[in-house]
């Protein structure tokens, strides 16, 4: 690694890439159009309120099945998808509400799927874990940990073969990097220089397992070295750092230089899924991370850097809450699917 390639703000870094400097968020925030910042705030708020509503609906007994909440992790999907062109693609994982919202999903249709309704994105066949929004370039999620990463490689391959200018963001968790699928897929993507940015949403735990007990490395970006791929770990709760770093990785991907592994370090506030009693971590640790809330932090930044006024910020927040409340009401009223002829849906004509 040459000195020139060391990126200020990186927690860990491998591979020889000439990273452009990243700016402190308090500086960078002034360089982005206010609409962009407002978009980021809106998507983060929508995600938070969506998931809080999901919890509420669950508690009210309206949800059959499980769900995986990303409360506290909103900066990674929003900061990275903010760096995409609308035609670009994403593929994510079981904890994917934020990615889906950031990529432009219709919230009502999404809520409908969450409730298993016929007008939902998957006509109620998929549910929380499988919400996809293909027409917006969101190829959805798999319930198999790591199972989406090889598919990402295939999507990247198709884009490359078609000489498309589009690129793909592929998301997965820390725990999934212990699956063979991760290894095979990143290796192939690197060998073929595919237009992909691999983004590890490290929320510190794979279900109940502290990621440091599941691997002998401190930073998951270290694993990029096995594939001769650049890797970088950053503060995944800082939406503008995520944006800057992923933008550069996207630039590499789009210019044919191949994939990058970006680790966004964050934390999941809620249990893994609804059956989680949180016995594997301390309340202190949870509270410590709640104090680092990516949304509160971003709002603070917007305010102190004077790019938005408090009332503007709160208006976005309130509107997001309203959108979610309305979506839930609408989704509850949606019709249920009916079981006739399901056999006809299995195969494409």
């Amino acid at each position: 690694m040459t000195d020139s390639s060391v990126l200020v703000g990186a927690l860990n870094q491998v591979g020889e890439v000439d990273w452009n400097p990243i700016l402190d968020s308090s500086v960078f925030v002034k360089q982005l159009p206010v609409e962009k910042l407002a978009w980021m705030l809106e998507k983060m708020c929508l995600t938070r309120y969506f998931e809080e509503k999901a919890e509420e609906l669950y508690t009210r007994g309206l949800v059959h099945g499980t769900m995986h909440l990303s409360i506290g992790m909103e900066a990674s999907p929003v900061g990275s998808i903010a760096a995409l062109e609308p035609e670009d693609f994403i593929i994510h994982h079981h904890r994917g509400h934020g990615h889906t919202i950031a990529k432009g999903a219709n919230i009502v249709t999404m809520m409908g799927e969450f409730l298993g309704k016929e007008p939902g994105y998957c006509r109620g066949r998929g549910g929380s874990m499988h919400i996809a929004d293909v027409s917006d370039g969101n190829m959805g999620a798999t319930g198999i940990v790591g199972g989406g990463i090889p598919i990402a490689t295939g999507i990247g391959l198709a884009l490359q073969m078609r000489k498309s200018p589009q690129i793909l963001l592929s998301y997965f968790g820390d725990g999934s990097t212990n699956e063979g699928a991760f290894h095979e897929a990143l290796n192939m993507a690197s060998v073929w220089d595919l237009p992909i940015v691999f983004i590890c949403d490290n929320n510190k735990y794979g279900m109940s397992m502290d990621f440091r007990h599941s691997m002998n490395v401190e930073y998951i970006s270290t694993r990029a070295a096995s594939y001769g791929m650049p890797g970088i770990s950053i503060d995944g709760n800082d939406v503008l750092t995520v944006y800057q770093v992923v933008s550069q990785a996207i630039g590499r991907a789009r210019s044919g230089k191949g994939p990058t592994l970006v680790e966004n370090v964050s934390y999941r506030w809620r249990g893994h899924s609804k059956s989680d009693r949180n016995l594997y971590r301390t309340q202190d640790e949870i509270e410590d991370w709640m104090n680092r809330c990516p949304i509160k932090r971003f709002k603070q930044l917007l305010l102190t850097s004077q790019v938005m006024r408090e009332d503007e910020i709160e208006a976005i927040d309130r509107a997001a809450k309203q959108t979610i409340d309305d979506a839930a009401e609408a989704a509850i009223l949606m019709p249920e699917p009916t079981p006739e002829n399901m056999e006809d849906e299995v195969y494409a004509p």
Partner: protein
Amino acid sequence: MSENTKREITYLEAVREAMVQEMRRNPEVFLIGEDIGVYGGAFGVSKGMLEEFGPERVRETPISEEGIAGAAVGAALMGMRPIMEIMFMDFATLAMDQLVNQAAKMRFMLGGAVSVPMVCRAPAGSGTGAAAQHSQCLEAWFVHTPGIKVVSPSNAYDAKGLLISSIRDNNPVFFIEHKLLYRTKASVPEEVYAIPFGKAKVVREGSDLTLLSYSIMVPRALEAAAKLAEEGIQVEVVDLCSLKPLDTETIVQSVSKTGRVLIVHEAPVTGGFGGELAAVIAESEAFDYLDAPIRRLAGRNIPIPYNRTLERASVPQVEDIEKAARALAREGR
């Protein structure tokens, strides 16, 4: 089942008790899998076991199903008796090489020089709203794999006794638990007991038709049979318990007696274990006693959907069994 045992425990507790008792008895037995420690496993089956046996013998792993299975195979080759837990049976897809190419074949391929005494426990089935990738019943794959034994208990009593036999068996055993059975209760003795493989149970006697089943479909079949009895239709319900080895004798006897057979399972009908059962019957002397075609009632040929109504409609429910059995009872030849 011993008459004087009154203690009722759940299927889940029975599975745990079998593991705990064998682990106390035999230091070579250990549990390996994901989130089986302080979390107690995704369904809570191993709750408390870490505390008793420590992290060496309640061995939590990274999320690496192929690695887990390989670790079990390797340890078994050395004479340990690993119980590996696959969190959902669907994830066995990630461990098929180790289970099918390694565990199952190694003894034969090495001319008998080794044995592979391991258990692969996996919760299967739909009904929890977990959708297509967390709801499968894949027993047919393992039945079709020479070298693996397959058991699939329908109640807490059998779960304990069959799991103890699985742990003591010197071969790879696939032990299938059904998620919806975990909370069901039965009278289960506290003593250690082993139920031999290859013995089906006639869990209800009847003269009009034989209903062959296993796992979750047994309680459903019994419920349906009770209702049909009110209409005067006497259904004989056979719980297969172990799918491989299979108790062909009990099957043939029952079918020869009733002359009609309905096979019920949750997995999709096409290519399911029901086909094997149908073939076994159609090849046997019971064929001569059949008064109606062999009927299968099984899961629809679709992935399991998320929505509760669709999910329910994807696999046989009590009313479906009732209907199918009633129709078959009336069917002449």
